[in-house]
């Protein structure tokens, strides 16, 4: 038996609805036989007709509703059809959800699911990565699972978490990433922990979400073709950052490359590099490098799109430049 990334998300939602009467799901086109634009909620409204609720197109109000329900004791999970549309909910997320605990002492346990990231032919408004701008605001937990097991357990943990969690799920992984077995039986890592996905000694390679898989294939190429041993870290949770795991690895390798599918300016890699530069400067043998998307909106035409996002080859190149520094 294999389970896909989106099936793991559906399983986590279904199990949370089954186990906890406080959980409800609110979003566009999620109920009925349709079951969501990416089928993440398919079959759930049949089992829980009152707690899988279709919303009109109103990301601001969807989020406001979730905030009110969360502070009144529920565990709302809201689905944005695409992460790009979370910009409409920006105000409620960063000014309302993120400030509630700090201002009032009452937690605001909502989960916002954001289907993000690039898929071929989807263009500027259906491929964006929202993690950097949402991470900037104190008060939100921002996670981006890269594996099927994490898709399941991080969503279960996000729902169990007392704070607002931005759950960035990668659309490309939905049906392209499969793992054998039932994710429920896989290891559950702490929500806020980064993890070493591949051990190595020459260079640390930090990433998250779908870019992790480009990093892992780059690490294979580097090992086999260049004899370079790369340690690959999956951040999993981009805010707050598990800096201890990053610094521990850099202490070992002295070199670091951070890869993301998102834009470079003010992004997660910039933050990771800043932490390393200020806290582990003395451990570095080479300047930290970033591998990011081209700093323009995301193009729709496949050749342009392929050139826009980083690939394993770009990461291989960046690591080689770093180890040869």
């Amino acid at each position, binding site marked *: 038996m294999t389970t896909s990334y989106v099936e793991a998300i559906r399983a986590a939602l279904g199990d949370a609805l089954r186990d906890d009467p406080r959980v409800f799901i609110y979003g566009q086109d999620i109920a009925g036989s349709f079951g969501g634009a990416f089928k993440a909620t398919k079959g759930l409204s049949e089992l829980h007709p009152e707690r899988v609720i279709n919303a009109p197109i109103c990301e601001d109000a969807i989020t*406001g509703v*979730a905030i*009110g329900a969360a502070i009144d004791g529920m565990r709302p999970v809201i689905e944005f059809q695409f992460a790009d549309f979370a910009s409409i909910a920006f105000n409620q997320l960063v000014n309302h959800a993120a400030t509630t*605990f700090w*201002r009032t002492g009452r937690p605001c346990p909502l989960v916002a699911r954001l289907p993000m990231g690039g898929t071929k032919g989807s263009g500027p408004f259906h491929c964006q990565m929202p993690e950097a701008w949402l991470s900037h605001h104190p008060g939100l937990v921002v996670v981006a699972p890269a594996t099927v097991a994490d898709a399941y*357990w991080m969503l279960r943990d996000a729902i169990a978490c007392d704070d607002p969690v931005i759950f960035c799920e990668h659309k490309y992984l939905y049906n392209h990433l499969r793992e054998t077995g039932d994710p429920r039986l896989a290891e559950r890592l702490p929500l806020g922990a980064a993890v070493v996905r591949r051990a190595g000694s020459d260079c640390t390679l930090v990433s998250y979400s779908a870019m992790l898989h480009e990093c892992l294939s780059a690490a294979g190429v580097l090992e086999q073709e260049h004899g370079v041993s790369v340690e690959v870290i999956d951040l999993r949770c981009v805010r*707050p950052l598990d800096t201890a795991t990053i610094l521990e690895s850099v202490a070992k390798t002295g070199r670091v490359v951070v890869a993301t599918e998102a834009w470079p300016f003010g992004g997660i890699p910039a933050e990771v590099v800043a932490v390393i530069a200020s806290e582990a400067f003395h451990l570095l043998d080479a300047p930290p490098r970033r591998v990011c998307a081209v700093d323009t909106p995301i193009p729709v035409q496949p050749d342009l799109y392929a050139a826009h996002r980083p690939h394993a080859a770009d990461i291989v190149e960046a690591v080689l430049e770093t180890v040869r520094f």
Partner: protein
Amino acid sequence: MTPSRSIGDAMRLLAGRAGLSRELRLAHLRWALLARIVDDRLLTLYNSAQVPGNVFTSRGQEVLAAAMGVHLRAPGPGAIGDIFAPLIRDQAARLAFGETPLDVIRTHLGKVTGPMRGRDGNAHRGELAKGMLPMISHLGAMPSAVAGVLLARRLRGALAYPDSCIGITSIGDGGTATGALHEALNVIAIEKLPFVLVVANNQVSYSTFNDRSFACRDLVDRAIGYGLRGWSCDGTDAVDSLVAVGGAIAAARRGEGPQMVVASLLRLAGHGSHDDARYMPAELKARFGDGVELAQAAALAEGLIDQAGLDALLEELRALVRAAADTARGEANPDPERDDWRVLSTPDLLAMPGPTAEANP
């Protein structure tokens, strides 16, 4: 301006006036007067540089806000209570709903003893345990949050018609232009929630008059477009406000769906304590009375209270507010060294318990 009124509205007013008890009228007067006195005290504190930031008073809107407050039910032991998200000019409603003058002043002074602990100030205050959502500045953001509380209660089976708890919030004429309000009212109507929106059309949004905020004939016309029931009232008139707001709240409690009251009145001060409102035309000032003065005069004329009783009431309320100010001023400011500065309620995301029975009781 007398708000445009249908024959149905007029009949409702006649019937409603007869139903207003002396106790309700006197309670209403008390909260309106207390709000005025609290506001005056806040301005005194502001003028002596004791308030970090500004003071936003309800001047001119006390009668409308008090009409909200006297019809609300605060939560208590065994009683779920209403959910109320007040905005900047709802002082009288807050007081009637259970906020103490002491907490009002504490918040304005930034005291650590207040409900916001110095982290937020002036009108951005509330206590979730007392059914009061603390507003964020962003106009239009609160109605959907109130809807969320009501939806939560519906899912838990806690909306008990025909005597349900309700959710209520207000918005100004300026705030009606926000997209957030549009999204929220549409959702509220779809979900048929027991919700009341009080639109306080005080003719001005900071310095912008109605003609630059909306182009419809009357804001109440929007109600039908959303699927809400609309009510109009003269927000400077105690009886009119009590009947319309009370009627809307009662209808929501009975399960008749969301209601919208549009009150016409005038902001009788600057936007905030920093604003002298020199832009306010004399023509508008001539058109609207001061609701608090009108309410006192009406109470005397109708024999609800005599002059000696009114004087005693005013003295009692002033003493209450004076004592609250004295207490608050003696209390501690937050200590930056001792504040936990914690922004997440989860102490450690590396050690968070998972979705076990303990985590999800």
